[in-house]
């Protein structure tokens, strides 16, 4: 039975698409048949991050409207086996996403995939609601910053009340927290919220902390999911995140400031 996972946040620019791309890539790397869907109709980005923007012919809305079949629209990733991308339409708007249409496409995808990752648009309007409505699990991406945490809180409320699981009285959507763009030094100084602060406010299990990293920007501009950047902090953190999602018990990395060097230890204090 396929699992539908929504990557959502409420706020924009916190790393939903980066997380969707790396999470889906990580699942596929580990051998699971995975598809990642861009729900951000009109502001198509996932294909850029995944580096397949020039291979988009048909899109999600075409499928919903019956203008193409799934095999025509699904883009096979060239780097990772088992990974497919279903891009959003750039020329439509979110109204094109109907509950019946999305349901039908997801049901069809369930036949051939184990994990269906839904990259939600920002906001709490139709696009975001459609992305989370059918979810079994949710990755709630948040930054260590009060407005982002507040918006994630709002999205958690919507997951608990307006998802299909909530409406039908099924077990609730399983929630995971992804804390992205975390800078331990700045959290230590009190410039940003700490992991503990965020966990206390949101009260859901922490799946992973992604450190603030130059690599994320570079790799998204290059169209490579950051999880494929071996040796990078963010890539490693996403790798851990996927392993934890699949049940491995790994300690969290990148949440404490890096050890100071000898000279800094000597002169740093005081």
């Amino acid at each position, binding site marked *: 039975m396929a699992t539908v996972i929504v990557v959502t946040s409420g706020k924009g620019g916190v790393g939903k698409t980066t997380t969707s791309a790396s999470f889906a890539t990580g699942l596929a790397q580990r051998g699971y048949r995975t598809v990642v869907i861009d729900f951000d109709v009109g502001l198509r980005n996932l294909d850029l991050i995944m580096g397949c923007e020039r291979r988009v012919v048909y899109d999600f809305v075409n499928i919903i409207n019956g203008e193409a079949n799934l095999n025509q629209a699904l883009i096979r990733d060239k780097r990772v086996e088992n990974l497919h991308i279903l891009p959003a339409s750039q020329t439509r708007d979110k109204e094109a996403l109907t509950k019946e249409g999305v349901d039908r496409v997801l049901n069809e995808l369930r036949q051939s995939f184990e994990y269906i990752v839904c990259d939600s648009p920002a906001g709490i309007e139709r696009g975001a609601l459609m992305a989370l409505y059918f979810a079994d699990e949710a990755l709630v991406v948040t930054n260590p910053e009060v407005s982002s945490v507040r918006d994630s*809180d*709002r999205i958690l*409320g*919507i997951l608990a009340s307006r998802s299909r699981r909530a409406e039908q009285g099924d077990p609730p959507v399983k929630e995971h927290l992804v804390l992205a763009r975390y800078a331990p030094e700045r959290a230590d100084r009190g410039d940003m919220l700490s992991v503990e602060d965020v966990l206390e406010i949101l009260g859901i299990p922490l799946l992973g902390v992604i450190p603030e990293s130059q690599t994320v920007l570079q790799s998204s501009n290059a169209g490579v999911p950051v999880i494929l950047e071996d040796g990078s902090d963010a890539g490693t953190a996403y790798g851990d995140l996927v392993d934890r999602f699949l049940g491995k018990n790994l300690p969290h990395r990148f949440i404490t400031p890096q050890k100071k060097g000898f000279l800094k230890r000597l002169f740093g204090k005081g």
Partner: protein
Amino acid sequence: MLLRSSRFAAENIPPFELKGSLFTLTVLHLFQLDRAAIERHLVEKVKQAPSFFNNTPVVIDLEGLAEPPKGLDGVDFNSLYELLRGHGMAPVGIRNGSPELQAVARQAGLPVLPDSRSSASAVKKPERTELAPIRNRIINHPVRSGQQIYAADGDLIVLGTVSAGAELIADGNIHIYGTLRGRALAGVKGDIETWIFCQSLEAELISIAGRYRISEQIDSTDWGKAVQIHLVDDRLVIDHLTR
């Protein structure tokens, strides 16, 4: 004469115009169609108030009319019309009744007026005098930003945390077994005897029976503490809960 009519034509005044107006009409509630019985009752009524029955326009209401046992064949609105005219009444139309009855009336030349929508049901509605029973509401999940929970006629008990941007409203007391970061409004129908309890006070707003305090007005010594909040002489008082 000729001059005058041509002047009318020149000014283009139409021969008539239609305007809506409201009238008070007498309604005759018909309960049966037995012509003899109706006539007997009519004679009696006319005897009581002869001046009332002077070409008085009436509307025949068919709502209370039992379905005629012999079907609609026996229904003769023409004869009913004549009967009423003969006793000083001028039927202007009918209202209510089954569609079949209305069709028969229309054939007899009686217009069908709009139903009296709620007169019957409004009368039937019983007066609620007794107090509603107290109904408490228990919420066993965190209350997230943007959610609003209202406990009508009772207390609101939240077992989790209330996030900033969430709102709790109760006619009675509010108990929070977690951190209160959102708003809590107790006694919103004006009950000044209601209380608010929480394990950690970090609220955006607290209010009892309309007297409120925003977070800025909460003393820093009360911030983050387990407290009970109530009204004393119309002022909000925050006490620390002792363990």
